[in-house]
């Protein structure tokens, strides 16, 4: 009896040590699997709301979304299936920019931020970096994934900051982009975010 007890204790201790080691290894694995744990910039909350009275509207040629823009902006030309409005300075510099475009490629709500940054550097940006991102953002008529980022254009090395959202409506998805020079984002963002919050999808 005494012999049986003494032989069981070391086995129990052994089991305990193995369990502790496994727990530590699991903790290490979790630590490696979560590389983005460093505190990020908070994403500004968006509350979908109709545009103020007097804001003009641009409807996508497909009829699947409506972009409302502040009266200080004017419609500008862009892709045939998209709509854009901007405030441009006399020397042709963009001060405020809004664009809505139907989903064209492999844009997905999941991984939208990474997709957008890849697209920027694959198209017109020399570099781009994410500042904040959010999923499950409520829009008028849908839900979206958004990213706020900064990028530098390859032409002119202009520094822009933007919020770009992929918004899924009942029948279709589209992208809304609101941008301003990075240096004036602080002044521009309230108006731009208001336009994003007023974006309506179908």
């Amino acid at each position, binding site marked *: 009896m005494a012999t049986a007890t003494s032989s069981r204790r070391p086995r129990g201790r052994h089991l305990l*040590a193995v369990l502790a080691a496994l727990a530590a290894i699991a903790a290490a694995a979790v630590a490696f699997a979560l590389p983005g744990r460093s505190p*990020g910039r908070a994403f500004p909350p968006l509350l979908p709301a109709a545009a103020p009275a007097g804001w003009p509207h641009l409807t996508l040629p497909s009829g699947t979304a409506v972009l409302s823009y502040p009266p200080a902006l004017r419609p500008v030309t862009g892709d045939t299936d998209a709509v854009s409005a901007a405030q441009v300075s006399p020397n042709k510099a963009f001060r405020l920019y809004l664009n809505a475009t139907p989903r064209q490629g492999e844009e997905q709500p999941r991984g939208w931020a990474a997709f957008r940054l890849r697209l920027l550097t694959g198209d*017109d940006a020399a570099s781009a970096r994410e500042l904040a991102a959010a999923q499950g953002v409520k829009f008028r008529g849908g839900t979206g994934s958004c990213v706020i980022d900064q990028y530098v254009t390859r032409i002119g090395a202009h520094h822009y900051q933007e919020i770009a959202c992929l918004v899924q409506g009942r029948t279709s998805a589209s992208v809304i982009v609101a941008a301003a020079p990075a240096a004036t984002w602080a002044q521009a963002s309230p108006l731009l975010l208001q336009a994003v919050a007023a974006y309506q999808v179908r």
Partner: protein
Amino acid sequence: MSFTLIRSAAGAALLAVLAAGCGTAVTAQHAAAGGHQHRAPIHATVTAPASPAIAPASPAIAPASPAIAPASPANPIPQGNGGDQDADNNGGPSDGDGNI
């Protein structure tokens, strides 16, 4: 014999914890480096929009990634009025197209 096994297990646990610490430190360092490269003084304002349309709603928030996208696309759209000749191929803000 069993004491040796216990020591081995404890050693493995210690190594695992140290490895986790190193991984976290590397991540933090990378984040700091990434954030430093293009920092502009107005970033903090992103978190404090003052629009009446903005309210403290609660979308699922994902942490910002400090990663910088590579600047070497495999097949870039030509700039200088290239591609579809819109503003973003001439130094303007990028539109929302899917690059197709």
